[in-house]
């Protein structure tokens, strides 16, 4: 009789524990799930110019890009010939910006797209909270 009661209590305890683990996992996934962009979302993109440019051209590119619809901020480094910009994805897309850039400037330029390997080995200051790790685990399992 006593053993039966203990088994019953253990069974209930394990069931409740597993239920809570599932609830927690669903909650963490829900909080960290990829969200659709909103009006405040910003995306960064980069254009590599394949020929040399001077400071005046860098300023001209900066001014032109700053006035394009959906562009948030621009930086042109004439030394590295790199154009970095952020944009609002609900207003424009990186490809569209690059397309317009090519149409407006007589410059050889490509959009830089990092490879999977690049992404896997970058950004040492990424969030590493316990809940974020649990989310990545759940994402991996799914």
């Amino acid at each position, binding site marked *: 009789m006593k053993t039966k009661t203990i088994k019953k209590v253990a069974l209930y305890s394990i069931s409740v524990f597993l239920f809570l683990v599932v609830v927690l996992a669903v909650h963490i996934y829900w909080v960290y799930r990829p969200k659709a962009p909103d009006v405040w979302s910003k995306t*960064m993109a980069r254009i590599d110019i394949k020929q040399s440019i001077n400071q005046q051209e860098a300023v001209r590119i900066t001014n032109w890009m700053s006035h394009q619809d959906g562009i948030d901020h621009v930086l042109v480094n004439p030394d590295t010939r790199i154009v970095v910009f952020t944009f609002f994805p609900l207003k424009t897309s990186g490809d569209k910006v690059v397309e317009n850039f090519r149409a407006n400037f007589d410059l050889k330029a490509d959009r830089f797209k990092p490879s999977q390997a690049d*992404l896997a080995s970058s950004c040492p200051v990424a969030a590493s909270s316990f809940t974020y790790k649990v989310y990545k685990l759940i994402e991996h399992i799914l």
Partner: protein
Amino acid sequence: MKRTTFFPIAVIVTMSAIIFASACSKNSSPKPVVKATLYDSLGGTTMVADPAHSGMMIEKGRLGIRSVIDSTIFVIAADNRINGHFTVLLSEVTHGNLSGFTELSDNLTTFVAVATGAKNYTYTGMNMHDAHDPAVNNRMNGKATSADFDAFVTDLVAGANKNKLPANLINSVGKIVQTLRSQVVQ
């Protein structure tokens, strides 16, 4: 008889009044000197409108730091010496992940805010030693060199200058960053 009873009562009342008065006096005890932190110098906890999110408020200190960090991220992203460590900034390009730029900005801003004395934020990322140790953090594709660190500091100063941060505050931030050199360059 009455006189002998009155005297001790008068003494007790007088002593009580003195003690009470001294306890209530604002000048009775020296105030602990609270030294202003660098975060306070950057604006502190004063709430101001967040220019990046209409209708939202943000601590002035955090806003100042975020502005410098965002400018620095742009400088780094265009700096071939170290932008290889930060390609995740461009991750949304190929993966539909919209958190690259925002996440790095948030994490770095929180880290610097806490390091400069912010009390209302908590940095939950890795400590600087582990974050830059390839054996612990598989996102580090190799050990950071002293040259990498120098490039980061140069870019940080460039980012601060773009926001017209006073030289004395840049020096203060620089001193804090320099204390991390041994943790980053391993």
